[in-house]
Structures are given as C-alpha cells and as structure tokens.
C-alpha cells in the first residue's frame, strides 16, 4: 500500500472513530466553547477591547483544542496496543503519521470554525473584510497544528505525567502558528488586507516545516 493510500485509510478510520465515539464533539467542543465564554466574562461585556483581543483568543482556544485532539488521536491507538498493528501494517510508517496529521487537522478545522462562529456571535464582531482570508488562516493553522500534534502526540501515551508534558511541548513550538494565525485573522477581519500575504506565507512555511519534519522523524517516535 502506498503512502497516500495508507494515509487515506487512517484518516477514514480516525474520522469514523470520532463520528461513532463523539469524543471531540462531546468533550473538546464544549471545553473550548467554555473557554470562549470564560474569556468573554473575564474581559467584561463587549466593546473595542474584546474586538481587538478576539483573534488572539480564537487561536489560544484552538491551541488548547489541538492539544486535546492529538492526545485523543493516540489514546485510541494505545488503548488496546492498536499502534503496533498500525506500524506492522504493510506500507511506510510515515503513512500513519500523515493519516494522523490529516485527521487531526480536519477535526481541528471543524473545531476552529465552531470557535470562530461562537466568537463572532458572543463578542459581536463586525462582518469580516475578507471572509476567504479568515478561512485560509484557519485552515493553514489547523494544518500546521495537526502536523506538529501528530508528531508529538505519541509522547502522550497512557500515563498522567505524559499527558501533562504535551502542552508544555506543543505550546512553545506552535508560537509561529499562534502569532501568524492571530495576525492573519485580525487583518482578515478588520483589514488592511495588504499585509495578509506575509502572514499567510509564514503559516504555509510553518506547515511545510512541521509536515516535512513529521514525515522524517515519526519513525523515531514510535519504533520500539
């Protein structure tokens, strides 16, 4: 089985697990929604300040969601030692990485869209200057976080200690996505759209770096 075919199988499997198990929908979704509400409450009712902070809050919440999603992506594999089966399956192990990364990215993109809608409604944001650019920023950010999370998620494994290390690793490493994502979203929401290219370009660069490194290094994370 080729790399892409193998990856596609794993994407389908992981999304099926999510659709039937509803882990993200029942746990991660409500958690990030709570975060959005809590941020809103801690900042006081609407106004210019909240509007200015909204893009940053959106991405911070997405980051929390990403950590939970990539922990879950590997939790289901370590539960019954299913990981061993995946790695022994014919085809390169990088297919497992790509599948995991794409599945996490898709779930994260859906989650981000939900967060975004919630932020717009709760914080009363004006109509975006460039809706397409908002979508691009969310998608590119989700891809980058998925690529990073799929590589590091293997660390989370089964024990409590390990789970607590994941955010410590993912947060500082995802700073490029956090800054570029927040900046691009702010520009797409309020303009000026002139500087958008630079930030979207940085997001693309981060995606390429993380996906390339993930494909190269995934073997070392899981071989035993």
């Amino acid at each position: 089985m080729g790399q892409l075919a193998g990856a596609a199988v794993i994407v389908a499997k992981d999304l099926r697990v999510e659709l039937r198990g509803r882990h993200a929908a029942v746990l991660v979704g409500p958690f990030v929604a709570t975060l959005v509400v809590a941020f809103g409450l801690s900042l006081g009712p609407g106004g210019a300040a909240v509007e200015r902070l909204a893009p940053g809050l959106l991405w911070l919440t997405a980051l929390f969601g990403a950590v939970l999603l990539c922990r879950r992506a590997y939790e289901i594999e370590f539960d019954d030692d299913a990981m061993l089966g995946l790695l022994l399956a014919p085809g390169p192990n990088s297919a497992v990485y790509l599948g995991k990364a794409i599945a996490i990215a898709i779930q994260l993109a859906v989650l981000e869209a939900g967060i975004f809608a919630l932020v717009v409604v709760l914080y009363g944001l004006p109509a975006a200057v460039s809706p397409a650019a908002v979508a691009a920023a969310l998608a590119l950010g989700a891809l980058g976080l998925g690529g990073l999370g799929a590589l590091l998620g293997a660390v989370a494994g089964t024990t409590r200690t390990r789970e607590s290390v994941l955010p410590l690793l993912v947060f500082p490493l995802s700073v490029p996505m956090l800054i570029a994502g927040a900046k691009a979203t702010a520009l797409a929401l309020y303009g000026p759209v002139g500087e958008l290219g630079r930030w979207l370009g940085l997001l693309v660069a981060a995606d390429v770096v993380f996906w390339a490194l993930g494909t190269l290094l995934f073997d070392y994370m899981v071989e035993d």
Partner: protein
Amino acid sequence: MRALRRVGGWITGDRGRRALGWTAGTGLALSAACSLFVVPADAEQGVVQRLMYVHVPTAWVAYLAFTVVFAASVAYLRTRRTRWDRLAEASAEVGVVFTGLTIVLGALWGRPTWGVWWTWDPRLTTTAILFLIYLGYLAVRRLPENATRAYRWAAVVGILGFLDVPLVHLSVLWWRGLHQPPSVLRVQGPTIAPSMLLTLILAVAAFTAAYLWLLLTRMRLRRAEERAMSVLLRDPVARVTSPQSTEDGVRR
C-alpha cells in the same frame, strides 16, 4: 584528522578537563577584572553598561548550546550511539541555565536603560520561547520507561525545537521591534571602543571555555550514572571491578 582526534581525546580525558576548568576559571576572572576595572564605563549608560560583558557571552553560549543539541540529536538518530545523547543532554541542561541567565541579566540591564524589565522585543521574545522549548526537551527526557526511547524522543524534540527557531524569530520580528541593531557584526566595522571590544571577546572566549567544561563534567557524571546503574542491574551486590568496564554491552 589524527591530530584532531588526539586533542579531542586529551580534552575529554580527566587531565584535559581539569586543564580546561582552570583555563575557564582564569579567563572568567580576567574578563571580570577587565570589565569591572580596566574598561571605561559607557558614556551614555554609565556603569550599568558593564553588564554587557556577561549578558552577551551568556546569550552566545545559550545559542551555541542549542546548536550543539541539534547537531548531537541528528548524530544520535543516525548512529544510535549513546555518547551523542550524552552530549545532547549535557548541552541542553547547560543551555537552559544560560538562557535563564541571559534573560535575568538582560532584565537587569533593561530596567535602567529602557525603563522596563521586559519588553516584547523580537530577540527577547525568541529567547524566552527558546527557554520554554528546551524546558520541554528536558521534560520529555524523563518520560519513557526505557532509556533508548527517551533518547529518541529527546532527539526529535531537539531537532524540531532548533528548526522552529527561525520561524519563531521571524514571526516575533514582524510582530514588533526596539532592540538596538547589532553593533559588532556590521559591514562598516564595529562601533564600540577597541578596549571594550577586546574585553567582550575575552569574556565570550572565557564563557565558551566554561561551557565546554560544564559540558564535559556533565557527560562524565552521566557516564558514571550509567555505570552505577548497569552494575546494579547486573548484580545488586556487585562491586565495580574497574572504572572502565564495558561488559554491559552498551555501545559507547
């Protein structure tokens, strides 16, 4: 090549390490004396500018240390020799300490000069994020139950963290700026007085020697830890027969 190997063998041996320790100590004492009593204080900033002679070298050592972590991580994944992991771990620990020092010394310098302890300047921000990334690196090392897995995970994070730095720096650079532009490495030549520059070079050299000494000492400690562990595992009541025993089958 052979000469290089001989020098390397001598430096990593006990006598070389001690000599390096004395060199580093003497160099640090000299550079401290120079920066405190010999060089004039800065005309504008006054005496506080003398912090430069510790702040710049610690920052240099921090970045050097993480570069070594990256190179050693790549070498470990390629060769699977424990010695590379020892180097990576030692360098990361020293690097984290020096990064912390850099941030603290920079804050002490920034307060009287800029009027703030901290500012979200690109270089400061990148250094702070580096600090966090390598704290994560050290945390990952403690996770797995078996040693080689810890080495591999650490190597992956060591590579990932290092290659993330340009992206981090670029993103915070575009985000804002306030640091003085680099004044030593400029095309027209340096803008600081020759005596200041010489003192700075001396301090950088001394701190680099100190870094190497810390590195070698930490690696030696780790080898001792491994020997003690392997003896315990083999025979809980055994005595260490010879300090160089490699019967445990670990490739060095």
